[in-house]
């Protein structure tokens, strides 16, 4: 938990956002984050984010599911409670396929969603600072961390990149446990000041 100061630029359209991201990055500013109402393709690349490895995690979970199903059923049928069904093999692999497949998918899907939530640090009860109330509606919000000396200069620069609105906000940079219908202490203090 740390409260920091941010220069915030609000853009109207992704077509304005892309050149702005380019300008800001080449001017040497470090972008804290960009918030968009939908997945803008190519934005991750423009921000220099590397590709997500989530699919690799999914593969590992899937393999875990496969081996769990095969191992468990194999152990039961050959070791724990061997039974002879009409002279069929003790390890009837074809008959194990349906459950093995289902568990592979189940493990991969559940594991990936949990990993997704963990990596993004999202879950019910988690709260994050919303820089602009319409960043989940139609605005594209770029946020740069600043200090007292470069705040106004950064804001000026952001304005020049085509932002329709800029401001300086003091905000919690991380997530915390909270409710969206309640104002946080630092927000109230800011309003008083």
């Amino acid at each position, binding site marked *: 938990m740390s409260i920091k100061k941010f220069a915030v630029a609000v853009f109207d359209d992704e077509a304005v956002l892309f050149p702005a991201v380019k300008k800001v990055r080449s001017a040497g500013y470090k972008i804290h984050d960009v918030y968009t109402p*939908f*997945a803008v393709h190519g934005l991750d690349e423009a921000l220099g984010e590397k590709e997500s490895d989530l699919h690799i995690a999914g593969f590992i979970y899937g393999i875990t599911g496969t081996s769990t199903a095969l191992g468990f059923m194999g152990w*039961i049928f050959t070791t724990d409670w061997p039974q002879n069904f009409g002279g069929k093999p003790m390890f009837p692999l074809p008959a194990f396929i349906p459950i093995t497949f289902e568990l592979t998918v189940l493990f991969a899907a559940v594991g990936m969603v949990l990993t997704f939530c963990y990596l993004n640090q999202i879950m019910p009860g988690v709260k994050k600072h919303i820089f602009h109330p319409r960043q989940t509606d139609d605005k594209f919000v770029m946020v740069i961390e600043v200090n007292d000396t470069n705040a106004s200069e950064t804001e000026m620069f952001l304005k020049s990149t085509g932002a329709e609105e800029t401001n300086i906000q003091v905000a919690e940079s991380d997530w915390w446990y909270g409710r969206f219908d309640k104002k946080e202490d630092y927000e109230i203090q800011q309003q008083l000041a």
Partner: protein
Amino acid sequence: MHLKYESTIREALVDGSKNYHQITEDICAPIENKPTKLWTMGFWLSFSLLMFGVFSVTWEVYWGTGVWNLNRTIGWGWDITNFVWWVGIGHAGTLISAILLLFRQGWRTGVNRAAEAMTIFAVMCAGQFPIWHMGRVWDAFFVLPYGNTRGPLWPNFISPLLWDVFAISTYFTVSLLFWYSGLIPDFATLRDRAKTKFRKMAYGYASFGWAGSAKHWQRHEMLSLVLAGLSTPLVLSVHTIVSFDFATSIVPGWHTTIFPPYFVAGAVFSGFAMVQTLLVITRKVLNLQEYITIGHIEAMNKVIVLTGSIVGVAYLTELFIAYYSGVLWEQEAFRLRVMGPYWWAYWAMMTCNVVSPQLFWFKKLRRNVWFTFFMSIIVNIGMWFERFVIIMSLHRDYLPSSWSYYTPSWPEVGFYLGSFGLFFTCYFLFAKYFPVIAIAEIKFILKTSGQNFKDKMHPIEEKSDEHFLEEQLHHH
């Protein structure tokens, strides 16, 4: 940035002049406004049906499955018919959300949210039937492989009925996760728009604290893609496994290798019909005709005529193979289907599933909302009869003295009506409190497929190819 050009020959997926904010307004409006009279009436009607279903099931649990008209010859009746029917309906949702995502079909974005919701509710309804058919339902957990005090005695992992347990529960879980991961950003939209404290809190919890960070969106895209990749074989496996319930038995008329593909095609067929039934009403009541356009309805009708024809080919193949096999019992089973005591069910199935969907070859009819609605009901009736016909193959076994006839008792009918109650109660709640259309996904396709953006494509199309290519290369 990806190419913002799409041929004007392709029909617009969002009609009217829209921008990002207008999309949010349109889709959030039904949630933020007071429920209409129609909604309230529909909800309470569904809820009372549900209560009647609860009463019928309670009756069955109290007196035992004997209150159903099943007997030694016909051990499966309406319950399993309804189970297969509901599971099948669920399949369209996954097909739209997963398979069409992999095929990059833009039109899925208008209908995927509601279709996935339908999947989840349909699977919930389906699950009720085998569970309550167990009779001693308090022992239902015996199907789970847990270290019990009986040895431990494990469930039979090589029984198709246990495969069903795994298939249906996996299907339900994965569909729910897929659906909910798509809902998270839309709940965040609702949260940030909320005027009342309660809404802010509730949608705040529901949105998991989503803020829309670029990195999070990147992971979200990856998650959707992989879940779609997982759901695609999953949806095919589920109805395959359901068909194994029949196909791995040695009952004449059931023991056929055609069952898995034929069941999957039938499932998609009935599922799309149910999507049509729901969306034709939803788009009208919630005023979303610009997002679920006639083009969407036509696209789904094309799927209906395709899968209906596949199902028709399967019916004819079945008949031919029964004749060609030279197996007396198999031939007799099919003769009885066509002209036995249940001939009326067979011909209802044939008319509804094979003959009438062929009318969708006419473009005028495909694009007619009333006709589509009427046909969607017909198809669902037909697909119910398909399962009934298959299961009623039981009515004559090898011993003429046990030949029997079956009609449902009132608790069976009540149970079926109750499943409609459950389905529509859930759907009404969904339509009121959840965004019926994936807001973020529609915004994503707006600039390529929105009507007002498509109109701007004309000047691009007038340019020469070389000029266009050069511009695109320069842009990157």
